[in-house]
């Protein structure tokens, strides 16, 4: 069966769903980042809420455990005045044997406007977006090894705040590239936004079979990968996704690829260090770096709310009519 081409954009090129950063042009990505800047200011006010999505209902459909992503999606929707439901499908109807499509039909019948989906299988958010009723939009909160687009935008938003001129930047992404949905979305976003050089740094066993296909420079040694970089994006070693003997031992991984102040010395003096969380201290990152002056890890968490507010409001507020005069 040939499926018609499915797009996350509507006929006018606006976001209808948000499933991946792939296929999004520089203008759209920049629009999201600029909108998020306005929302970041809202988070600093006494009343951290705006009435944009009043009356809308957002459902967080989480098939995989998550604290930070779930919390920031929930807070983002609440700060936009939407009603939010969190449904943990690991211990819900699916366990009782209900099929995914039946679960979706049930939620659709409750007149929801948006599903935020996190799932352990690649393509889950796409599948749901293809199968939901037309009035529902889907945001991908991470699907398998495929994509985690909002996380990538958080990272570039954080990077842009510290280093606004992307054309001069060298960025290293370090760690488990093979299993990381974050890495794929990061590489794609950084390249679209015109970063000078993107490097991926990992042992052969944690790289995909053809790493060059990702469009980044491949470095097998951490020292080579970190030399003169402006930013380091660390990835979590995903114990739950790594099967078989890919790593000799955690200790050895830390020796070779764990980020320490000493190894960071070859990077530019003003380089910043990012990590999408949760941290495995002493595995991919040393506490001295994670808590040190170059770490912007907690800023990434705050920015997560602003980015998700921006994307949610852009999707649910697509222009249908003409601008009303003031």
């Amino acid at each position: 069966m040939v499926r018609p081409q499915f797009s996350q954009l509507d006929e006018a090129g606006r976001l209808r769903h948000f499933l991946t950063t792939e296929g999004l042009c520089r203008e759209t990505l920049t629009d999201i980042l600029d909108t998020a800047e306005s929302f970041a200011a809202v988070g600093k006010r006494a009343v951290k809420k705006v009435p944009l999505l009043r009356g809308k209902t957002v459902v967080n459909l989480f098939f995989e455990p998550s604290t930070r992503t779930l919390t920031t999606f929930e807070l983002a929707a609440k700060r936009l005045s939407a009603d939010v439901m969190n449904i943990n499908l690991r211990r819900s109807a699916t366990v009782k044997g209900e099929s995914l499509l039946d679960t979706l039909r049930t939620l659709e019948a409750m007149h929801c406007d948006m599903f935020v989906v996190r799932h352990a299988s690649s393509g889950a958010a796409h599948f749901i977006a293809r199968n939901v009723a037309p009035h529902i939009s889907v945001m991908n909160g991470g699907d398998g090894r495929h994509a985690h687009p909002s996380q990538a935008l958080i990272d570039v938003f954080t990077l842009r705040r510290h280093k606004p001129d992307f054309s001069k930047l060298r960025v290293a992404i370090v760690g488990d590239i093979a299993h990381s949905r974050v890495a794929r979305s990061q590489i794609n976003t950084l390249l679209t936004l015109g970063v000078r050089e993107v490097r991926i740094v990992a042992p052969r066993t944690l790289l995909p079979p053809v790493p060059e296909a990702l469009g980044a420079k491949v470095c097998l040694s951490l020292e080579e990968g970190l030399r003169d970089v402006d930013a380091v994006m660390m990835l979590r070693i995903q114990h739950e996704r790594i099967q078989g003997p890919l790593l000799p031992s955690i200790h050895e991984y830390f020796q070779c690829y764990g980020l320490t102040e000493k190894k960071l010395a070859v990077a530019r003096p003003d380089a910043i260090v990012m990590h999408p969380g949760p941290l495995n201290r002493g595995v991919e990152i040393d506490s001295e770096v994670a808590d040190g002056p170059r770490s912007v890890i907690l800023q990434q968490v705050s920015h997560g709310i602003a980015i998700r507010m921006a994307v949610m409001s852009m999707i649910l507020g697509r222009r249908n009519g003409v601008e009303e005069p003031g």
Partner: protein
Amino acid sequence: MNINPAETTALLKSLATELGAKLGELARKDPLIVGIHTGGVWVAGHLHQALGIVEPLGALNINFYRDDFSQSGLHPQVSASELPFAIDDRHIVLVDDVLHTGRTVRAALNEIFDYGRPASVLLVTLVDRGGRELPIQVDVVGRKLSLTPGQQIKLTGPEPLALEFQDC
């Protein structure tokens, strides 16, 4: 029919004078000036300077408070709101370029109250073109005009400021 830069400057001058008089008459001491993006901020900047206000100028981006969000969505590339002062128990002068339906002012008032509880809010606009759809009134106005619904008026700026008319 356009109002050229020289006339606009004269209009701003008389607006500042009238505002000063109004504030005196109402005994509103130490007012804070807040403009609505984008044209309102330009006008507010002039008033802020003319009245010699010490505290910084405030700016509102009412994008997140518009009542037509579900029809027209977000309007990108407008800077964030910035009220760099505490507004509780303060007298606020809210400034916009053109007053029309009153919906922008309604949105701005809602946003202001998310920052705190001001003692009072005074509305100042450069032009009142009529056509109100909400019970909103202007306290100090530069010029009143009667325009048909099809006519548009737009403040161009920031330097020099001028008013342009368009027939749609």
